């Protein structure tokens, strides 16, 4: 049973991201458990890739740290196994297509299903290429999460109509990273999506403060935060768990007020 729906059932959702294996496998497990405990509704776990072209510097560096520490796809599945001993929080992976292809599509999706990974976000897999993973996604009931960007315009309907799980609304041009201001008309994007589907929407890219999260969640069904959390992990390493937990708690409270 795909649990993504659950994540959006308790009001506006807060969705944090961390890179698996940054700073190490054990800390990743503790971070996920702590975030779940502090109100994270759905957690994005990044499978590191050497060349993450959609990421800003903060997440690029997290990927490099994790890869230097020897993280592999197999080890990420090991991390999820450990996580599942402690929490059933809905989880999705964020990764690039190449590591999935290298692991083997069928084996990858089979492992996802077995461990309760309910979705996959693949920034370099646009609508036109999603056939690449469609068969396995259906076979193992792991949703491919669609992304909609400020430049999507006339593509919004086409993408939203076939969307599953939730829709990742990209709030800003460019790559991931903290921004002081989000200038895109996110409300208009979400309205265009809602005209064709009731799949929930969550807004990401650039969100940092509780005020921004509240504002974005008010316009949609949830807020996604990556770089701001990864920054804490980058600065404090193994000792970041409590700080990340506090941050998630504060952000969850903010989105609930949206």
């Amino acid at each position, binding site marked *: 049973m795909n649990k993504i729906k659950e994540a959006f059932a308790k009001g506006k959702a807060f969705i944090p991201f961390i890179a698996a294996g940054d700073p190490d496998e054990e800390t990743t497990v503790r971070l996920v458990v702590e975030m779940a405990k502090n109100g994270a509704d759905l957690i994005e776990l990044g499978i590191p890739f*050497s060349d993450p072209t959609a990421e800003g510097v903060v997440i*690029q560096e997290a990927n490099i740290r994790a890869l230097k520490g020897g993280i592999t796809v197999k080890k990420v599945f090991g991390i999820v196994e450990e996580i599942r001993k402690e929490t059933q929080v809905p989880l999705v992976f964020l990764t690039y297509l190449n590591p999935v*292809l290298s692991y083997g599509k069928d084996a990858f999706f089979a492992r996802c299903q077995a461990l309760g990974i309910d979705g996959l976000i693949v920034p370099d897999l646009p609508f036109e290429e999603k056939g690449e993973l469609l068969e396995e996604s259906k076979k193992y009931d792991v949703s491919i999460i669609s992304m*909609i960007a400020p430049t999507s315009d006339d593509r919004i309907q086409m993408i939203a109509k076939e969307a599953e799980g939730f829709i990742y609304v990209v709030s800003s041009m460019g790559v991931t990273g903290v921004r002081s201001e989000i200038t895109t008309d996110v409300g208009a994007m979400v309205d265009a999506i809602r005209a064709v589907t009731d799949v929930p929407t969550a807004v990401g890219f650039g969100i940092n403060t509780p005020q921004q999260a509240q504002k974005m969640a008010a316009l949609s069904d949830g807020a996604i935060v990556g770089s701001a959390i990864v920054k804490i992990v980058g600065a404090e390493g193994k000792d970041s768990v409590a700080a990340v937990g506090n941050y998630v708690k504060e952000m969850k409270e903010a989105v609930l007020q949206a």
Partner: protein
Amino acid sequence: MAEGRFGIFGGQYIPETLMNEIHRLNKAYDFYKNDPQFQAELAELNKNYTGRPSLLYYAEKMTKDLGGAKIYLKREDLNHTGSHKINNVLGQALLAKKMGKTRLIAETGAGQHGVATATAAALFGMECEIFMGKEDTERQALNVYRMELLGAKVHAVESGTQTLKDAVNETFREWSRRVDDTHYVLGTVMGPHPFPTMVRDFQSIISREARAQILEAEGKLPAAVFACVGGGSNAMGMFYHFIPDEGVRLIGCEAGGKGVDTDLHAATLTKGTVGVFHGMKSIFCQNEEGQIAPVYSISAGLDYPGIGPEHAYLHSTGRAEYVPITDEEAVAAFEYLARTEGIICAIESAHAVAQVRKMAGSFSKDQSIIVCISGRGDKDVAAIARYRGVQLYE
């Protein structure tokens, strides 16, 4: 499935933020490639700015020395800016202008493509920013200054391995920040559709000319054509109009670095596997985890872990052959061409010359072969001197 496939290779694997822009580009290119006005403007630039057609030079001394096929050099090194890169850049800059763009961005490895893009930007009165791996800005310092002289801003890319692949990453990131007024002048036959097709079309002028020139000189087609391959743009240009001529062997020469049995090479087709990266499905140097491998070559222009999808296809069907050439063989060929024919070619092109040295003798004297001299070697002189232990700095 998206457009732009060569067998299983190609496609459009890029973030959603760029999809509408890439469709706009595709549509514009589809229109202008058939527009007589556009083609006339490009032909005018090729003739009066670049200095085309480039010569097909009969290398008589080299032919005599190697004792086999008659060797012809396709002299792309004589183009304005010193390499084949200008063929593609003028086409894309003209297209960008027609699309209403005012700013050009590009990646560069050796700096040849960056120089060509900065040149076109100066000519067309456009803004220009070039992304270059930090390591490459150091080994090609002269080209950095050259780009700045032409009015471009050069960004030293410090992420990843600080070479060509990271420069490509950073240029894609910059494009996704700012698409409205900006065109990404991709420098080779890679990336998402339509780049591999479009760049190949602009570079195919090399084989269009060479085919006519060799028929005029020899009265028959060559036995083989040779070109160096990094991303593969001069090679696609050199191969393209010979692809239907089944008797003509197409031979691409990859960067073998310190040897393909070491970790220090960029021999994608010799050692790589199928993957998806930089917007395309193709062959890449990668580890078993699908992480893109650091690659190495003495030549910054061939120091790339992938190859254009049409090459991957020509390789898979066997229509083209690809061989690795080591640093040592390339440097020896660089020196050989200088002493034998008085031509200092780019270290990239020297990889193709090296293969000709190996194979020329295996053809008969009534056959001919063509090697693409994709660029001139002024930029490499200091690096070759250092390779030979002469402490010469630019």
